[in-house]
């Protein structure tokens, strides 16, 4: 019997961070992981996909290398080596997490957790059954991929993101069902690795909910590379013929048939709550099955907490991690709470898309007097010298006081650029503050400064509108 102050079920980016912080605060901490530490993010999501993205981009860049005076011949992708390297990156991060948890004297239990009550858990490990008596319970089991009726995963023709990352070769013809963040990342990866891509999205734009101006840039680029995009469309029939299939897609312009070799379904995720025994615990969920909590991560049952994806959208690793810290600190008696103003997000498609705070539409809806200013990367030295002139930075501010309400970026390294904007919003900065802050030249973040200068009414590198 292990006596613990905190037992955390799930060792993903929410759970392991919660574990580290709890252990740092002197709580006797147990982190239970049924699969691999790091969870979906490190093992089957963020990290492996970024490895593939790096290589696919490099391969793609080399195709147009001659334009820059770089001669490269005989470039090909060695999938075996690529997968090996990707695996090494993942393993390194997983062992790093283990090292950190152990370094702070948290106990790691590998196995499936069975929740008997809020203070009693049994974990089936390789060594047998281990009972835990805990004062606080943190639920951090995240989400799993949802499937579509008629498009059930078979691990071969119809696959999910996890299998998509482990492919031994680029499919000749790949259909991506679901044009959200994950779908677009896969479309970008395999398009660059030589696949013919078809995207089927049920809504009227890719990346539903994102700023339409931003999405247009990604949409155009995909199409310019030969990707077929069907919006307001859905798969109605799959005819398997050996290793390939004919897929019937219902589009606004009638039904089309697409020949494919693989179908990657990325239509959302659902909470992984089946084994948490929520009913016995008396923990309440919302209509979609996510665990309801307050902004201190407390469920309706005292001593039971939920963090990360399990709490509901946005399903983001960095949100889960922060929530993990809040839960650990609340358990340790600190007055922590999720009071951040914004949660930035990033999509690693081509070009990259990132966003923080309010979009133009949302800001208008919220009643702000919205000022919108943009700066095109095509006018920025560093973007041109990188050979990536597509996209722009869009700053949404409040007319009058100039408060930064939101920033959307589509373009090179958008994922890296968004943190400055997030800090600006958290600090309550105005467009003046950003405009008056010297940004080094020549760099991509200058685009945020330029857009802010424009918002402040005195742009340098663009004509006044």
């Amino acid at each position, binding site marked *: 019997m292990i006596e613990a102050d905190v037992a955390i079920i799930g060792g993903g980016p929410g759970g392991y961070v919660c574990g580290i912080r709890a252990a740092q605060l002197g709580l006797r901490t147990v982190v239970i992981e049924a699969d691999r530490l790091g969870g979906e993010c490190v093992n089957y999501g963020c990290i492996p996909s970024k490895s593939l993205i790096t290589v696919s981009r490099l391969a793609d860049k080399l195709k147009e290398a001659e334009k820059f005076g770089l001669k490269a011949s005989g470039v090909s992708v060695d999938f075996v080596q690529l997968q090996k390297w990707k695996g090494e990156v993942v393993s390194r991060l997983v062992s790093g997490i283990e090292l950190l948890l152990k370094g702070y004297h948290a106990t790691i239990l590998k196995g499936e957790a069975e929740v008997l009550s809020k203070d009693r858990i049994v974990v089936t490990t390789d060594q047998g059954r281990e009972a835990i008596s805990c004062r606080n319970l943190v639920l951090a089991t995240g989400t799993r991929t949802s499937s579509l009726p008629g498009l059930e995963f078979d691990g071969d023709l119809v696959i999910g993101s996890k299998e998509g990352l482990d492919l031994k070769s680029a499919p000749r013809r790949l259909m991506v069902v679901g044009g959200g963040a994950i779908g677009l990342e896969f479309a970008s990866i395999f398009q660059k690795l030589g696949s013919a891509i078809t995207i089927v999205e049920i809504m009227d734009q890719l990346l539903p909910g994102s700023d339409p101006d931003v999405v247009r840039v990604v949409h155009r680029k995909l199409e310019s590379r030969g990707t077929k995009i069907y919006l307001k469309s859905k798969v109605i029939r799959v005819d398997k013929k050996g290793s390939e299939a004919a897929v019937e897609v219902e589009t606004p312009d009638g039904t089309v048939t697409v020949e494919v070799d693989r179908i990657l379904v990325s239509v959302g995720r659902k909470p992984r709550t089946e084994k948490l025994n929520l009913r016995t615990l008396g923990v309440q969920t*919302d209509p979609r099955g996510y665990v309801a909590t307050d*902004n201190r991560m407390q469920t309706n049952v005292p001593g039971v907490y939920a963090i990360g994806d399990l709490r509901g959208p946005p399903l983001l690793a960095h949100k889960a991690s922060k929530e993990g810290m809040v839960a650990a600190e609340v358990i340790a008696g600190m007055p922590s709470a999720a009071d951040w*103003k914004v949660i930035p997000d990033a999509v690693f498609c081509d070009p990259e898309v990132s966003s923080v705070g309010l979009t133009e539409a949302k800001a208008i809806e919220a009643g702000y007097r919205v000022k919108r200013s943009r700066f095109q990367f095509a006018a920025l030295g560093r973007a041109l010298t990188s050979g990536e002139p597509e996209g722009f930075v869009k700053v949404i501010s409040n007319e009058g006081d100039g408060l930064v309400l939101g920033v959307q970026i589509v373009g090179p390294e958008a994922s890296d650029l968004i943190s400055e904007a997030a800090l600006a919003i958290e600090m309550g900065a105005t467009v003046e503050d950003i405009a008056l802050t010297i940004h080094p030249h020549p760099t991509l973040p200058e685009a945020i400064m330029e857009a802010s200068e424009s918002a402040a009414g005195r742009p340098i590198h663009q004509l006044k509108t």
Partner: protein
Amino acid sequence: MTFAFKLPDIGEGVAEGEILKWMAQVGDQIREDQPLVEIMTDKVNVQIPAPRTGKVLQILAKEGDVAKVGQTIMVIDDGSADGGASSTPAPAPGPDQVTAAPQPQQSPSSQSILATPATRRLARELSVDIAQVKGSGSQGRVTDDDVKRFASAYRSGPSTGTAQAPPAPAGGAGSREELVPLRGVRKTISERMLKSLQTTAQVTHVDEADMTELVLLREAFKGSAEKRGVHLTFMPFIIKALVPALKEFPYVNSSLDEQSGNIVLKKYYNIGIATDTEQGLVVPVVRDVDKKDIFELAGEIEAVAERARKGQLTLDEVRGGTFTITNVGAIGGLFATPIVNAPEVAILGLHKIAKRPVVRDGRVEIRDTTYFSLSFDHRVVDGAYAARFTSRVIETVQDAKRLLSEVL
């Protein structure tokens, strides 16, 4: 609009109460009339309902703090328009529903609070709802100083000094001591007992009583009591035996009003029954015992004791006592020296009834006897007076015929 929730007048001259438990936290949606706070006043816990529907902006009296009647203990945003930033009153959640965490990204109100993340954290640490703080910085930015000023402005009065250490981490491993906060009933008992001993001049007089006839009398009445659905203990008989003695010795049923310099003789007979509960000692009061028969008394004692154990006593049920009885007979011991339940003047301790050898008419007999101990305030009552009072009670208890005329 913000609404200042002030500790309401709970009645019977209660001037202050200790915050035992908040049932809502800052940021929670509350509904009018849902139980909001548990207050401990004068040995009883009172649940006070939410005065209106809205969102909790700030809690100004922490659990453990003592708040005065009329003091603002919570600030509520009741959602009525005042041109404030957010004013999208969220629907009040049902009683069983958990308020889902606000999605910060979509909330214009959280957008419009201008304060750095570190300042927001400071506000949480000082239990301040930052939305209520007027910022002194440009465009109303809230600074650390603004938060601190706000916190100290609201926190006037006795609670200033109670900077509580954060709760100890669950289970400081390996400690050989455990910290139990002095709260609630325990805290009240500790204060009142000390005050009683420090402000009165207490003496205890002990005498022996022969209970043989009372034991028989109780047996005789037991059956008819059961028919009425009550369990008959010795207590109602003792109470009835007290009444003529209290009438004859009115200073025992009095209190000393030091401010006016008067001894207040009470012409009503409300007897407090010291009751052992899980939380500690509470003293529910049975009123006008002179006008009730033993069955009524037995039923009432049973009912209030039960409610005392469940922590369900109302304020009225613990106030207005004129004399107290404490019975430790069921537990054992020879006799104790009880502490007077001030501002009353005397308390009677009852003890174990046991068969003991007694000399009667020059012969040793085995009789049911017990000890009565009367603690009294010597400022009001002298030893001889108290001894005569006790003798009168014992005479009545020992004389079944006389008792019979009293009990029915």
